[in-house]
């Protein structure tokens, strides 16, 4: 019998979050969201305003909570991976990769070189796609509509490459424990090369539109400041922290999937404002292109997934010839595979920051506990103090600059 605790909550419980002036009516309490175009999803902010200045900003999340962690506990390791796509829907490949690396760490599966390289290409393509959505929406929030249209045009190209390989534009589930779902088609290499060739000019175009545009600069410079110490204390990661001078990138610090073989820079800015984060992400797109170029040039031939039949299903062609293959196929797709007992914490660098998955196994075919440490969850918490003292019109610039995805936050 589950223990049920009766909780009575009234609005009185929120009183300690606002100042006394708000209760007396001297300041204004304003509700922003959950249906507001500039909150990038279903985020609700309770704002206490003194004129146009924000005194208190109280984020309210959970509108997109879908219980993914609970659901994953009742599915086999293979089934549970499908849910990882739905977490951060702008970084589906990255979520797949984090989950697969965690499973591979627990089961000690080896991944062939070709699969590693294709993974890197896709994760970096996904990073560019995610940054394009960020750039488009950030500019749109600041009333630069044309940038949005250009960004989504280029993003469409990346989604086409994903569809080419996985059959899906967004919910790919392409990276699997032990390798990939299937090998990339022959057209893949040329498509990636074309993209790498034409994208730098496009990034230059966005920069021409924004980087030195005085209207844009007025809206982003000196807004939403965060020092290095604050960023670390509040657990900010990724490009949001790098805009404040935190020199940390998981791809360099704890390389995974062979990132140590690629030559790339980690852009750092020290101003810690919206503009600094903008510059960091623009440069990150260029560095991602560098990685993709090196990866596609070295893309080795060979198997695209591990040959360990206890965890990875046999190829379809073997099913008509080998009894062993049929047994493995049946066992893997019905009851799944047992994963050794233990708990690991695997981190990858998502476009937003540190994406961590804590995977605990009890030795059975289903994960005992999966915890997603998502960057957006930590970053929305920053809003509760970063926005204080700013103009209410600048709040949309700040929300855009910390690059949140609500599916990532609420899980």
């Amino acid at each position, binding site marked *: 019998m589950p223990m049920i605790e009766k909780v009575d909550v009234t609005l009185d419980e929120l009183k300690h979050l606002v100042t006394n002036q708000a209760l007396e009516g001297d300041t204004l309490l304003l509700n922003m969201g959950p249906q507001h175009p500039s909150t990038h999803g279903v985020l609700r902010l309770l704002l206490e305003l003194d004129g146009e200045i924000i005194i208190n900003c109280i984020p309210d999340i959970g509108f997109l*909570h879908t219980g993914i962690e609970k*659901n994953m506990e009742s599915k086999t390791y293979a089934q549970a991976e499908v849910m990882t796509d739905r977490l951060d829907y702008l970084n589906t490949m990255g979520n797949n990769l984090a989950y697969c690396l965690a499973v591979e*760490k627990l089961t000690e599966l080896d991944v062939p070189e070709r699969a590693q390289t294709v993974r890197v290409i896709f994760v970096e393509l996904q990073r560019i796609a995610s940054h394009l959505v960020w750039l488009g929406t950030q500019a749109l929030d600041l009333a630069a509509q044309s940038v949005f249209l250009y960004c989504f045009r280029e993003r469409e190209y990346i989604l086409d490459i994903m569809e080419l390989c996985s059959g899906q534009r967004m919910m790919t589930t392409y990276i699997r424990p032990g390798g990939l779902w299937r090998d990339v088609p022959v057209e893949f290499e040329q498509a990636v090369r074309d993209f790498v060739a034409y994208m730098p000019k496009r990034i230059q175009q966005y920069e021409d539109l924004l980087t030195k545009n005085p209207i844009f600069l007025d809206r982003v410079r000196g807004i939403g400041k965060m020092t290095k110490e604050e960023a670390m204390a509040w657990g900010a990661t990724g490009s949001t922290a790098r805009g404040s001078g935190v020199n940390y990138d998981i791809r360099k610090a704890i390389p995974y999937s062979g990132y140590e073989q690629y030559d790339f820079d980690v852009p750092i800015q020290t101003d810690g404002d919206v503009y600094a984060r903008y510059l960091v992400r623009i440069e990150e797109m260029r560095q991602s292109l560098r990685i993709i170029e090196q990866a596609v040039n070295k893309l080795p031939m060979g198997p695209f997934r591990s040959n360990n039949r206890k965890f990875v299903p046999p190829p379809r062609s073997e099913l008509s010839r080998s009894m062993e293959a049929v047994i493995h196929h049946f066992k893997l797709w019905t009851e799944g595979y047992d994963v050794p007992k233990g708990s690991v914490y695997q*981190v990858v660098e998502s476009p937003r920051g540190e994406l961590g998955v804590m995977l605990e196994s009890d030795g059975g075919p289903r994960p005992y506990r999966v*915890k997603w440490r998502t960057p957006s969850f930590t970053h929305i918490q920053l809003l509760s103090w970063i926005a204080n003292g700013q103009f209410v019109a600048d709040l949309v610039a700040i929300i855009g600059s910390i690059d949140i995805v609500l599916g990532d936050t609420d899980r």
Partner: protein
Amino acid sequence: MENEALKKAVQELEAKFGGEAKEFRGQIQVLLPADQIVAAATALRDRHGFEVMPDITAVDYYPQLTPRFHVVYQFNSISKNIRITLRVPLDGNQPVLPTMTHVFPNANWLERELWDMFGIKSEGHPDLRRILMPFDWEGHPLRKDYPLGYEEVQFTFNYDEIDQRKPRPKE
């Protein structure tokens, strides 16, 4: 455990705070008693360079009651590039833990999530409310004795019957 800085941190946790370290797949996990966790985290931050606490979460081992929960803290040192995991066992159905908010401010929301999902209270927390679930929700969803739940399919013949059982918003 080749890293010198990590070795030092683990030695201090074992000697001063009664920790019990083990290594699994190259990651260090230290089991600590609940009353030592804040002191241990402060020591890690001030003396061993762990500036960031990325995550707090819990694991429910129901029906086992002693300990029923493990609260899992992750620590990251950017300057030394090392990571460590602390695990705190907690007994019983209404577990309490000292809050970490004055050591790492981002613990605020993480501990709210801990309360929301597992019913683990953080003592001294400034603002312990539900965070992901609706504020009038009953129970703590990520506990193992909390059912997964499903929605019944409404057909014409049982439409009204199911409709009556559906949860309604409070007045």
